[in-house]
């Protein structure tokens, strides 16, 4: 008898080709994608440098830093703009060399240079700190010597200069500060996608949709009426989770609550619209759940939430940029941890708004066609 049930289950699964595709094809696709994409060691970390000295010695340092491809250096005009580059997310690190560097160096008075590093992502911070150490290695210091025509070169000192490291934004390198803002986004994504994902398909399965469409209700009223409650519930959930984060884990507060509210509202709208789209293309609640899961998993792994975006190969990175969660992570870390200027987050907000437009338009087209 048990075999009969097992056989029946297989038969049922076989008759649902979409589900088979979701069960077999999606895991394979994701495995290949993650296999190619997920690397812990990033390359080409953007580093802004402000070299006031511009001497032979400082060139040595700058060149060494950019040498092995880990850092990708570009010059800025002031210390303020160096910090701003990091705050805006355009650079992950920065290097400041003061104008008296060479003067102090030749007098063997151990000048200091400052390495600034974004502390938002503690694992990356540690890696960057480690990689920056090459500038104080013998490779460089051995080249900092006095020329003497009669004798062999004299190295200035074993430690000719000192590199200070300043961690910006999350000086205590709290992992919670790094993860928690993203976790909020993941939770909201789960709730919104699954709640909305099954909403229409459930009405289809239970036959209430047919009964509803016989009434004089317009399709637009139906869509809005269907979406608004989930937006309210998910907004409430967002602040509930965030409130716990503030209370239990001492998450920092944003400079602008309005900007945070705007982020919550736009991000939730993206997720609800995407959920609605899933509900329209699914034929059963089971299919809707699977599609939702297959959106959530790559979102978590390819968005920069856990692994830095810089660690994802260039040819796969476009996928990261079509994931709405990528922009949410960037904005919420900017708002809560880095206090990034709103003008620097403008394009991230714009990207999220574009997702709302795309998903809503697609939903309208499919909705008109199918229902």
């Amino acid at each position, binding site marked *: 008898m048990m075999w009969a049930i097992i056989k029946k289950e297989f038969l049922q699964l076989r008759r649902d080709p979409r589900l088979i595709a979701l069960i077999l094809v999606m895991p394979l696709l994701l495995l290949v994608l993650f296999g190619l994409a997920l690397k812990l060691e990033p390359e080409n970390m953007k580093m802004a440098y402000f070299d006031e000295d511009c001497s032979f010695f400082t060139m040595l340092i700058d060149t060494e830093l950019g040498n092995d491809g880990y850092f990708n250096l570009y010059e800025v005009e002031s210390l303020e703009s160096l910090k701003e580059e990091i705050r805006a997310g355009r650079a992950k690190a920065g290097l400041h060399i003061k104008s008296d560097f060479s003067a102090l160096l030749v007098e063997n008075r151990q000048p200091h240079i400052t390495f600034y590093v974004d502390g938002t992502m503690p694992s990356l911070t540690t890696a960057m700190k480690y990689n920056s150490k090459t500038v104080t290695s013998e490779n460089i210091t051995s080249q900092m010597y006095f020329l003497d025509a009669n004798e062999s070169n004299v190295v200035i000192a074993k430690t000719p200069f000192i590199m200070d490291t300043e961690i910006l934004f999350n000086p205590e390198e709290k992992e919670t500060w790094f993860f928690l803002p993203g976790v909020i986004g993941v939770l909201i994504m789960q709730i919104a996608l699954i709640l909305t994902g099954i909403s229409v398909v459930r009405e289809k399965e239970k*036959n209430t949709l*047919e009964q509803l469409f*016989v009434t004089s209700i317009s399709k637009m009223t139906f869509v809005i009426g269907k979406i608004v409650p989930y937006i309210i519930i998910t907004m409430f959930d967002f602040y509930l989770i965030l409130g716990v984060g503030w209370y239990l884990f001492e998450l920092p507060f944003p400079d602008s609550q309005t900007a945070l509210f705007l982020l919550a509202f736009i991000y939730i709208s993206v997720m609800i619209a995407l959920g609605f789209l899933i509900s329209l293309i699914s034929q059963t609640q089971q299919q809707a759940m699977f599609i939702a899961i297959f959106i959530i998993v790559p979102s978590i792994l390819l968005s920069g939430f856990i692994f830095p975006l810089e660690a994802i190969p260039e040819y796969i990175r476009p996928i990261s940029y079509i994931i709405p969660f990528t922009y949410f992570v960037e904005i919420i870390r900017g708002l809560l941890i880095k206090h990034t200027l709103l003008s620097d987050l403008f394009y991230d907000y714009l990207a999220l708004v574009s997702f709302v437009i795309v998903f809503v338009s697609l939903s309208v087209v499919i909705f008109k066609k199918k229902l």
Partner: protein
Amino acid sequence: MIKIENIVKKIAKKSVINKLSLDIPKGIIFGLLGPNGAGKTTLIRMLCGILKSDSGTIEINDKPVEEAKHIFGYVSQSFGQYEELSVWENIVFYAQMYGVTDTTRLNTLLNRYNLEQYRDTPAGELSGGYKRRLALVCALAHNPLVLFLDEPTAGIDPVTRKLLWDDFYALSMEGKTLFVTTHYMEEAERCHQLAFLAKGEIVAEGTPATIKDSLNGVRLFSITLSYTPLAMQYLSDIEGIVLINQFGNELRIMIKPDCDIETIQKILEDKLQVKSKLKQSTLDLEDVFIALTQDKAL
């Protein structure tokens, strides 16, 4: 009240409704009969605006379906109310879908259909009969002129079925037009007008009485005979037999006007040693229905 002209519907390239026309006057109970897969549900879904026809026109009270939604109600074959909501919440919700906010009429309906006792019960917990009543109340909440009922009494016990039909008459007396699809002959007999649907086409139309007379000259004979597969075997090849139908100990044979009944009598006597004589009977709706909707051409 309901005017259908030349509608055609194909689903997955297969013709489901083929150039169908009907004109249903106001205030009657119109029954649509047809075997499974004849296109009844497709037709009623088109009339309610759930499906669109490929060609042809449908008008309800001289308006296209989309503009007439507020003047008709629909009770689908399967329960289409929200199981988690209470009886009252469902009624109020569906009333609001038509812009009705006054609860006086809704309370009257609740009492009329004896649902007052279940007012706060979740709809999912109701018995089959009460679920139908609730569906009916939801469809009537906006006081429509036309009511589409897709197999409204399928799976319902005879007592509830009778109660529902008493109510259908009352609704028709109030001037409402009822469009009912059904499999039940007893139910079909109750309709003022009928149409038989087979393979997407109307094969007979009229009152139950005129439909019974529609089989030009076809006669029905019956004989007392217990079921035997041999009867079917010997009779099925005879030219002119339209239908052989066994009812308990009675064998009913429908024949075309030119078919000689004596030949049949002789076969029954010779091959099956039947002693009694075939007697002419009156056709009932089921005989006509099977004769018209079976594959054998009349």
